[in-house]
């Protein structure tokens, strides 16, 4: 259960960005994760609701984008969407493929405000 550790890192990053922009609160975070990051979205959501207490993101929402696993086969010049434990070209079965997507563990964006209860705008 390393999702709590991941959340602490995520919140530290968000607070660093808020400070950079001279804002007091983080009201929303959007992250992107791939299955090969080893992070489970439901566990991360639960951990986030605990970890955000007493941080600048205490009332923040967390949006998680789940990315697919995509491999690139040089021989076939083909991108395949595959399962996390079958990184093979769907056309030729080759395992000598390059992972194009699926290992991500990224903070994409944050919404900053001066008060924790500021409403989230629609962009």
């Amino acid at each position: 259960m390393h999702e709590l550790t991941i959340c602490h890192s995520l919140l530290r990053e968000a607070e660093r960005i808020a400070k950079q922009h001279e804002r007091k609160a983080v009201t929303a975070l959007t992250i992107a994760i791939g299955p090969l990051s080893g992070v489970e979205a439901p566990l991360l959501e639960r951990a986030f609701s605990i970890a955000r207490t007493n941080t600048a993101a205490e009332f923040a929402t967390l949006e998680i984008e789940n990315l697919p696993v995509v491999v690139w086969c040089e021989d076939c010049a083909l991108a395949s969407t595959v399962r996390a434990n079958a990184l093979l070209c769907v056309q030729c079965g080759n395992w000598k493929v390059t992972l194009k997507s699926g290992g991500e563990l990224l903070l994409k964006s944050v919404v900053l405000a001066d008060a924790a209860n500021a409403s989230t705008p629609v962009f």
Partner: protein
Amino acid sequence: MCDECGCAAGSGDTHVHDEQGIIARHRTNPQSVEVLTGILRQNDHEAAHNREHFDRHDILAINLMSSPGSGKTSLLEATIDALGDRYRIGVIEGDLETENDANRIRAKGVPAMQITTGQTCHLDARMVHDALHGLDLEAIDILFIENVGNLVCPAGFDLGQHANVTLLSVTEGDDKPAKYPVIFRISDLVLLSKADLLPVLDDFSPEQAEKHVRALANPADVLALSARRIETLVPWLEWLENMVVARNAKALLAVDALAPS
């Protein structure tokens, strides 16, 4: 239009004033900021710092991972017996509790630092960095970092190692790489440990285990060995010595690049 000065910012936006009371700028409240940064940025930064330490002291650092009881410490004991007179070895031990593993290593005359993580299921770069302060890095050629026995969490955290070595004992099942793809995908070497038991196990196929590793697009060698059969360690010891040579060559290249022509 804003309420204060009639600028184009929306009503309710925040105005920031400088010391003279002049409006310095408007800012939208709330404000969305694109980031696109790794969530583990801090750990990655600390891991890079550890790697600099290792390279400065000409140390090859190996992150040893497996599920609990796969024989990491036994492999280290056998490796120390085989290479201890040619390389100065150091060990960092990660466990939830006890100094037992570090004591086993110290009994071999090798310096060992024990990290007890409490309820934390993995080592991170900061813990390794703190442990490095307890070791004389000038007196180490190969540093083994024995991670917490766990096939899930350690995979996510770079420690600054030069290579990941993952043990899969033959009593566990040859489909472990398919069940735990994250850790086996990032392994630079997979060791099938306790292989002396293969004759009495009819349900573990080393070929199947290797096939599952390949299905992770991983070209890593898959070697069967047993810490109790010294002769089976030869390919592992050769791999290790090749890594020492490769790291030194890379370090020399880096020095050459810095040297004035």
